[in-house]
Structures are given as structure tokens and as C-alpha cells.
């Protein structure tokens, strides 16, 4: 009778749930880390190829659907280009004046980062843990905890796990992400953390501090996990914290995390 029972579907299902339930409860990451490393090593070339292929298909689809608006977009872009050229000329002038003043006042030069550029080759499609996979790993000198940026100064997250040729980047919207930050200009201090994997919140700000909608929030450099001055986003809304002891601000990120393609890892600063 026992043999009959063990041959049933229900017994097999119960056995699988018991075994894997125990695994989830104990969560022995160390046992599966070598397996994961081998798996990522096998997946890496396919992931890269598939991602680039899907980008090509997406861009072709995008191009075909935007043919109608190309003429107008072209005209707008020409005008914007001219405006930017003029601004650039002004900034070049300001830059040389800045360098001259720094030299005269014997100030240290602005920080230059040691960057490793990488392409995004995979994303969290469930949207809960909010991470991306990039095509650089320990073989390129990437280590856990290194901050990841785009466009020369906008932070998007930090390296959470590394493999030989790829790494996992935990985004700022990840609910486990915490970074020290300040409001640019007013030096209002707080911490930026991910909320429900959907947004970013500037939390633990004293009630006496003033925050305005549109203020820029940057990394403070405190704690050493990221250099100072990396842009996180702009304040969209302020509210009291749940315990009413502090105030919070909802931050609108400066980049769309779902459209990340090329990122840079700060190896040293």
C-alpha cells in the first residue's frame, strides 16, 4: 500500500515541495554559486547575441513606425543642435576661466573616474528585484559594490554580484538599495532607497530641512560607497515619513531604467 501511495502524483508533488521548500528556507547560496558561475559562463555569449539581436529588431520596428515624424524631428533636432553649439561655446569659455581660477587659488582638480564601459545584456523581466546584467565581470577588474553610472555622472545602481565575464547591477529602484545623498545646493542630508521596485525615495530627512520640488538630489560621498556629486534625480513630491519623525521626498530618476543600453562602472575615484 505504501508503494502504491509513493507512486501517486500527490506524493511526488509533496516530495518535491518538501525538498525545495527546505532549500528555500535554508538558502544555501554557497552550494549553488559554482553552478551559477558555470551557468553564466555558458549563457554569456548567447545573452549578448540575443540582446543585440533584439535591440536591432526593436530599432527597426521603431524606425518603421516613426518614418512619418522623421521630417519634423529632423527640423527640431537641427534647431536644438544650433542652440547647443552656442551653449557649448559659452561653456568652453567658462571652463577655461574655471581652470585658470583653480590654478590661481591652488584648488585640487575635479575628480576623474576610472571607468569601465559595459553593455546591458539582460534585465529583470519580472520587475521585482530590479537589476540588469552587464557584459563585464571579474576579468575586467569589476568588483562588488562598485557604483554604476550613465552619461558621465548619473548613478543608476551598484554591482551586486560578479562572474568571470558578466556582472549583476542592482538598480536604485531595488528595495534593498540604500545610498547616502544630499540635495544639491542646500546640503540637506538623507538616504535614497528603492521603493517596491518601482520608484526611489529620499528618506530620513530632518523635519527642519527645506526641500523644494525640482531640487536635484546627488550622492553625498558619505560611507564611501559612491563618490560625491553623482546625480540621482529630481524631487517630485515631498511628504512626511510613515512614523512622522522625518520627511521624505519622491524622486523622479534622471534615466529610464528600462532603456539602459550602455553603462559605466566606476572602478576607482
Amino acid at each position, binding site marked *: 500500500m505504501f508503494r502504491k501511495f509513493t507512486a501517486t*502524483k*500527490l506524493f*511526488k*508533488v509533496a516530495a*518535491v*515541495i518538501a*525538498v*525545495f*521548500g*527546505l*532549500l*528555500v528556507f535554508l*538558502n544555501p547560496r554557497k552550494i*549553488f554559486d559554482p*553552478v*551559477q558561475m558555470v*551557468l*553564466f559562463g555558458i*549563457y554569456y555569449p*548567447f*545573452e549578448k547575441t*540575443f*540582446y543585440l*539581436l*533584439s*535591440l536591432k*529588431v*526593436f530599432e527597426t520596428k521603431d524606425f518603421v513606425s516613426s518614418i512619418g515624424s522623421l521630417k519634423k524631428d529632423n527640423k527640431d533636432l537641427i534647431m536644438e543642435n544650433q542652440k547647443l553649439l552656442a551653449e557649448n561655446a559659452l561653456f568652453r569659455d567658462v571652463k577655461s576661466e574655471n581652470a585658470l581660477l583653480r590654478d590661481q587659488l591652488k584648488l585640487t582638480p575635479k575628480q576623474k573616474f576610472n571607468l569601465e564601459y559595459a553593455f546591458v*545584456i*539582460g*534585465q*529583470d*523581466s*519580472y*520587475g*521585482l*528585484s*530590479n*537589476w540588469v*546584467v552587464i557584459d563585464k565581470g571579474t576579468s575586467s577588474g569589476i568588483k562588488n559594490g562598485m557604483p554604476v553610472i550613465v552619461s558621465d555622472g548619473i548613478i543608476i545602481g551598484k554591482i551586486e*554580484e560578479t562572474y568571470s565575464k558578466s556582472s*549583476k547591477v542592482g538598480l536604485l529602484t531595488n*528595495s*534593498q538599495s540604500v545610498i547616502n545623498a544630499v540635495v544639491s545646493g542646500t546640503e540637506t542630508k538623507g538616504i535614497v532607497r528603492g521603493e*517596491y*521596485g*518601482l520608484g526611489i525615495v529620499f528618506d530620513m530627512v530632518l523635519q527642519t530641512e527645506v526641500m523644494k520640488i525640482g531640487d536635484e538630489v546627488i550622492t553625498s560621498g558619505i560611507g564611501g560607497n559612491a563618490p560625491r556629486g553623482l546625480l540621482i534625480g529630481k524631487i517630485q513630491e515631498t511628504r512626511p515619513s*510613515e512614523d512622522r519623525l522625518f520627511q521624505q521626498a519622491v524622486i523622479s530618476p534622471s534615466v529610464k*531604467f*528600462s532603456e539602459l543600453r550602455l553603462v559605466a562602472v566606476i572602478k576607482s575615484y
Partner: protein
Amino acid sequence: MQNILIRLGVIFLAVLTQISFLPVFFSANKAPNIILLLVISWVVIVEFKNILIWIVISGILSDLIFFRSVGTSVIFFVILAYGISFLSRRFLVENKNWGFLMMAFFVLSAVIFHGLFNIFINSQFIENFRGSFWTELILRRNDIVMQIVYSLLIFPLCYFSLARLEKRISFYDKKINLG
């Protein structure tokens, strides 16, 4: 041996599509779950006892590639497969005309329960039950609806492709047994 390689290849391709192909076309929270659709299709096409091991392998691979605790997806997929196997053997055999609606019901229920399951195991839930689970569910309700729509659109492609493949596998199996 050939059957094992083919099925492993299918699982490999499904996970690859999920991590590297779908996120480009769908925003993160709205992408359909190809691996889930694969499990549903497999359970309907092949007998449960023959496909259980492959469902377990799909779950393990999915957990490893998506950086989750190994076993999380396995538990969900196995419970889902058992439920679908139980219902499909009773209702699909007796009411062949309602087959399409039954499949749509399986996909709809699977996507909803998978969405709830994911929110449940999210780390926020463990830290703070009172606010986190329900708040996240309310925030993600539109995403779950869009996932259902996309899954229902993609499921027929997944199901018929897999049915053809399994037919070929069973044909080769018969050929080997007769030979």
C-alpha cells in the same frame, strides 16, 4: 538522449528569451513569462509524471538565472502543474469544445497567481508585512493585467510549437521502441 537534449534546449531557449529578448520589447513589469507558458503547455500536452522532472529543471534554471533562492520557482511551477494536470484531465477530455476557454483560464489563473506569488516572496514582505504586500499589489495591479493580455496573445504560439515538438519526440520514441 536526443529527447533529453531537445527538452533541455527548449528550457535553455525559454530562459534566454525571458532575460535577454522580452525586456527589450516590454517594460520590466509587463513582460509575459515564457517559462510559465512553457510549463502550462507541457502539462497539457504531456502526461504529468513524464514532465515533472523537466518542470523541476525549468524552475531550477529560472531561479539561478534570475538570482532567486533556488527552489522558489520550482515550488510554484510544480503546484501549478499539478493543478492544471488535475483539471485538464477531467475537463478537457470531457468537454473538447471548451478546450480553448479552459486553456485561457489556465493562463489567466497562472499569471495572476504567479504575480501574487512574486510579490509575496519579495524581500519587502519579509521585512514589513503590514504595509508592503498589499501596497505592492495595488501598485502592480495594472502590470498584472497587461501581463495577462500579453500572455494570452503569446500562449497559442508557445503551445502549438511545443505540441509539434512533442509529437516529433514521441514519433522518434515509437520508432526506437519498434526498432
